[in-house]
């Protein structure tokens, strides 16, 4: 049995050894390879994953490495104090999902008001990132936690050049923390009282220490050790040691559906894999291939399918540990056909009040439909897509909820805690059937949708996902359609203008770049078109994806958020 000092030494050696591989994997925005691929929102996280692939690690090893690394280089959008969902498709045919969403603390009651504050201790939920990544590695990886965490530790300890995206986010944090004077955050990011310049080496020693502890002791130090105690202290007991002790990530069956002969593997409830699958199932009733991405009929049909799928999400998709979600019905082809029959090619369905909710129970065992409650999501999330040369694929979406989460940093450990609590609904006695009201240890419903697509031959075809809050399902569906129906390259599919259609929005929100005649035609169909967004607008997400064609992998880091792809 190694002593703690010996463990620390082993971690240090591993950090050095893994670092020697750094030169093998330079990230760019678009990369092709036959040896494996990692695409994330930051080139350094992609390189971290590629390092692990180069060392012989599989996609899960690389995914965990990249996921820890992204918490260092994109601390505003992902953190040890955050949550996430992972979809894994293994070369041996197994598909699975790892749910490491946060959970509400144990003391929460129906009567608690979770709308305010959206910052500070009372906005937090028990984080899941460390448990989820450790579980994935333990069950499906081939390397140790210390080995895969080495790149992240190196980035935190030795620092990295501050990039323009993080600079902008630090500028916002400067304001959030009273001009950087917060006694915990200030010394970490604003040591001289000012925002560091782009290019300055950003060192996060406390975060490095936290990562080293996890690397050497495993997730227990986070959930039952000194980090758990520190979380309880900084949240003033809102998150209790017992809540952290109790937390577990969960392996679940993914949602699997078929679109044009391609198998779509997505997240089960209570996130948006069901919405993506249902929308694609509805669209399978229409032949879009003769049309184009900007054809108003195509846009109309896709918009209506997304609207109908989102309408079903609110009453039916809840935490599966609390509710029996009618998945069989929601994902059935017959149900999709019934929903598709509601699409009028000449008239748009008005969103919200009149968008019909279906009854998936008609297509499965008897159950009772529930009423609609609505949430507002933060767009502050990150996507990681990984594929190895054996055909193992991983898609992860990870988040703090808002950028910088609760804005509460755990002192001495250098990471922010999420502000996920607002993703629940308040208890409403007039809507007793709302399935997203906060309850002790419940997971809040959100819209993340990491996805893997297999081609008709059963090979991994696409690994995709995006940040973007309510725009996530639309952006994922449009990216898939752009490739499969409209024959675009991955780069084209990602760059092509996107739109968002969902019941929570009164308008059809369209990114800049659609022809005016398309916008006019959609308005004539009855859509309320909101088209005052820029071209390549971050509002519509930041897709990081991988596409495989003829054995060649193409990785694309998001154009809307300066992502990067890297290969071993």
């Amino acid at each position, binding site marked *: 049995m190694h002593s703690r000092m010996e463990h620390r030494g082993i971690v240090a050696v591993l950090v050095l050894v893994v670092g020697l591989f750094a030169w093998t994997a330079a990230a760019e925005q678009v990369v092709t390879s036959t040896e494996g691929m990692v695409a994330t929102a930051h080139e350094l996280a992609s390189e971290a994953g590629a390092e692990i692939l180069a060392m012989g690690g599989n996609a899960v090893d690389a995914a965990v490495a990249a996921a820890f690394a992204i918490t260092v280089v994109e601390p505003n959008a992902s953190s040890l104090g955050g949550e996430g969902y992972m979809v894994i498709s293994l070369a041996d045919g197994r598909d699975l999902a790892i749910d490491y969403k946060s959970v509400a603390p144990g003391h929460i009651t129906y009567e608690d008001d979770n709308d305010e504050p959206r910052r500070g201790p009372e906005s937090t939920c028990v984080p899941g990132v460390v448990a989820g990544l450790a579980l994935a590695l333990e069950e499906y990886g081939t390397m140790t936690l210390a080995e895969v965490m080495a790149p992240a530790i190196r980035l935190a300890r030795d620092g990295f050049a501050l990039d323009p995206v993080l*600079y902008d986010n630090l*500028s916002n944090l400067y304001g959030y923390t009273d001009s950087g004077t917060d006694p915990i955050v200030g010394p970490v990011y604003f040591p001289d*009282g000012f925002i560091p310049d782009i*290019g300055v080496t950003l060192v996060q020693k406390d975060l490095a220490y936290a990562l080293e502890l996890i690397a050497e002791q495993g997730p227990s130090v986070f959930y039952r050790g000194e980090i758990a105690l520190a979380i309880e202290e900084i949240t003033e007991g809102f998150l209790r040691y017992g809540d952290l002790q109790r937390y577990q990530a969960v392996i679940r069956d993914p949602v699997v559906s078929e679109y044009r002969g391609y198998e779509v593997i997505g997240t089960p409830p209570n996130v948006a894999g069901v919405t993506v699958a249902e929308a694609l199932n509805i669209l399978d009733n229409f032949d879009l291939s003769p049309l184009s991405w900007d054809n108003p009929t195509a846009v109309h049909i896709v918009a209506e399918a997304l609207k109908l799928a989102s309408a079903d999400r609110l009453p039916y998709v809840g935490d599966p540990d609390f509710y029996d979600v009618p998945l069989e019905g929601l994902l059935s082809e017959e149900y999709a056909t019934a929903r598709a029959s509601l699409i009028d090619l000449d008239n748009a369905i008005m969103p919200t009040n009149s968008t019909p909710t279906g009854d998936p129970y008609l297509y499965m065992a008897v159950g009772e439909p529930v009423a609609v409650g609505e949430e507002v999501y933060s767009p502050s999330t990150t996507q990681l897509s990984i594929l190895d040369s054996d055909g193992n694929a991983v898609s992860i979406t990870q988040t703090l909820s808002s950028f910088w989460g609760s804005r509460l940093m755990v002192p001495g450990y250098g990471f922010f805690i999420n502000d996920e609590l607002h993703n629940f609904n308040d208890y409403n006695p007039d809507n007793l059937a709302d399935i997203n009201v906060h309850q002790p240890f419940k997971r809040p419903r959100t819209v993340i949708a990491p996805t893997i697509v297999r081609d008709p031959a059963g090979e991994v075809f696409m690994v995709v996902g995006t940040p973007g809050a309510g725009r996530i399902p639309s952006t994922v569906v449009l990216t898939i359609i752009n490739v499969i129906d409209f024959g675009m390259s991955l780069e084209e599919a990602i760059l092509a203008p996107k739109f968002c259609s969902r019941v929570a929005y009164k308008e059809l929100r369209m990114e800049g770049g659609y022809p005016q005649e398309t916008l006019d035609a959609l308005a004539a169909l009855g859509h309320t078109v909101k088209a005052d967004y820029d071209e390549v607008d971050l509002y519509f997400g930041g897709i990081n994806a991988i596409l495989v064609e003829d054995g060649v992998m193409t990785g694309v880091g998001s154009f809307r958020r300066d992502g990067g792809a890297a290969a071993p």
Partner: protein
Amino acid sequence: MYRRNLRLLVAALSVMVFAFAGAALAQETEPVEEEAFGTPVLIVSVGQSAGAQQAKVLAIKAGLDYVFEQRPDLSLLEEKQTLILVMGASSKGLGAAGVDIEGEIAWATDLVARARELEMTVIAMHIEGGSRRGPTSDQIITALTPLADYIVVKGANPDIEWTESEEANANADGLFDTIAAEHEIAIAYIAKTLDGVGVLIDLFGIEATE
């Protein structure tokens, strides 16, 4: 042409020398004997970036008698002696304020006009370096800087080698030099944001707080 130009030029020359040489030299340089700028000062943001908040920190460190308001009503100019416009565009900040860039520039132009009616001195400050240069920030810079009596910029003095990172240099293209020359405005260059403390100390003739 403003009556204070000669005094401003003297102040500018001494400030440029010490600001670029660093804090140690600043302690050895004699401060400007005459107080060129008056207090209290109103610090505002034009563009709603984090630059103004950093300017506030500079003011605190300098011991300046100041009022900070990100985007004030014109009435806040009353009983102030100097207006500091801290320039830098943030789409998030402008969005939060509910204004577009044209509206922001129009408001700031009105602010300067009112400051002139009150016989205030105006300082145009850009202290976020090259990180805060771009089409929208440049609209602000070209519109407002010519209206100022004095310029403070984090960027390269054309006569002195720039040793900081290129990203920190807001004057790499000489935009501020061009404006200063065309409009005969005194200009101070700083290499690090913290150097702005010394500039304020010297401009306002106050004792350093650290």
